[in-house]
């Protein structure tokens, strides 16, 4: 893998995820800078991105078994072990979440569950234990369980994004000016974009809810009608 001194310094600084309110660089500008990558590295980047941020249509249009099969095949194409670890961590989080949801949804036999990653055998082996016997291996599991119990998908998404973000930051700090560092930045950019979009959607929902409440008040409704007349 090559070194990318010019590209790394040409990328803007991304603040902490919670502080990301606006993207410092558009996708078009990012793609322009990424043309500095060699063709092979660009291809690898696209593969890693597709595995890290699976398309929602692809997720909805396939069963878990099919998804796992496709991912296992695609993972063989990732050349960098460092990047493979990042993707595996993301997939393991998804598997863990899917296992928690499946179990709470009434799945009684772990044999029916399909997932990917190091923790899968342990999850199946300890299916009926609260934390699948993974508490020592993955201490953040209890946090995920707490958030899951609150039934707040937006909060859960934020917590998972934070975990992925920290994993990528650590990797980026260990790989200066390398291809891995570029990929970690691009993946963080994707998480930040998702986070900002989520914030926007949440704000819109809140606005609609407040508007609905206000319009629901008879006095205000009448005033608005009078105003329109």
């Amino acid at each position: 893998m090559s070194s990318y001194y010019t590209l790394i310094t040409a990328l803007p600084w991304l603040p902490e995820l919670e502080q990301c309110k606006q993207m410092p660089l558009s996708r078009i500008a990012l793609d322009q800078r990424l043309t500095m990558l060699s063709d092979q590295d660009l291809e690898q980047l696209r593969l890693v991105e597709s595995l890290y941020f699976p398309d929602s249509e692809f997720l909805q249009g396939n069963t878990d078994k099919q998804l796992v099969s496709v991912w296992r095949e695609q993972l063989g194409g990732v050349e960098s072990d460092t990047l493979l670890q990042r993707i595996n961590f993301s997939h393991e989080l998804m598997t863990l979440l899917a296992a928690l949801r499946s179990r709470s949804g009434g799945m009684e036999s772990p044999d029916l569950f399909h997932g990917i990653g190091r923790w899968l055998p342990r999850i199946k082996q300890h299916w009926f234990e609260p934390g699948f016997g993974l508490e020592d291996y993955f201490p953040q599991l209890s946090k995920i369980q707490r958030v899951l119990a609150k039934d707040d998908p937006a909060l859960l998404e934020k917590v998972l994004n934070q975990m992925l973000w920290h994993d990528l930051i650590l990797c980026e700090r260990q790989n200066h000016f390398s291809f891995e560092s570029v990929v970690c930045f691009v993946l963080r950019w994707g998480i930040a974009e998702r986070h900002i979009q989520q914030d926007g959607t949440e704000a819109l929902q809140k606005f609609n809810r407040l508007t609905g409440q206000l319009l629901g008040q008879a006095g205000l409704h009448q005033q608005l009608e009078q105003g329109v007349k």
Partner: protein
Amino acid sequence: MALGWAGLYGPMALGAIGSMIGCAQAGQAACGALLETETGHGRYIGIAAMPSSQSIYGIVVMFALNREITPENAPGLAAIGLLCGLALLFSAAWQGKCCASAINVSKIRPEIFGMSLAPAAIVEGFAVFAFIFALVISAGVPV
């Protein structure tokens, strides 16, 4: 005899190779920073030139070692020249990495520009050690 000549020209050649690597790395980083920043371009170019000093040290050591090469002084010249050259090569190459990092972080936070140069300055210090003591030792090589 051949080793003597290698020792004579070694500091210059190896120092220059190190400077090429270091300046290229730091220079590439500077180019990226130019794209991302509006001001302070001069300082990035200045940092990118830092690893060139090893070439100058190499030239000075070469002149200090310059004498008629004989079978008696060839091993001494080879030892001092080649080891000093290697020290200059590695210091320049790694200083280039330090400079690239300094450019990258000072682009994000310009106020830490001075502090970010400390690692590059420390590496430069080791190059100066190799240079000075090569000059001192060279006095003991028979003319």
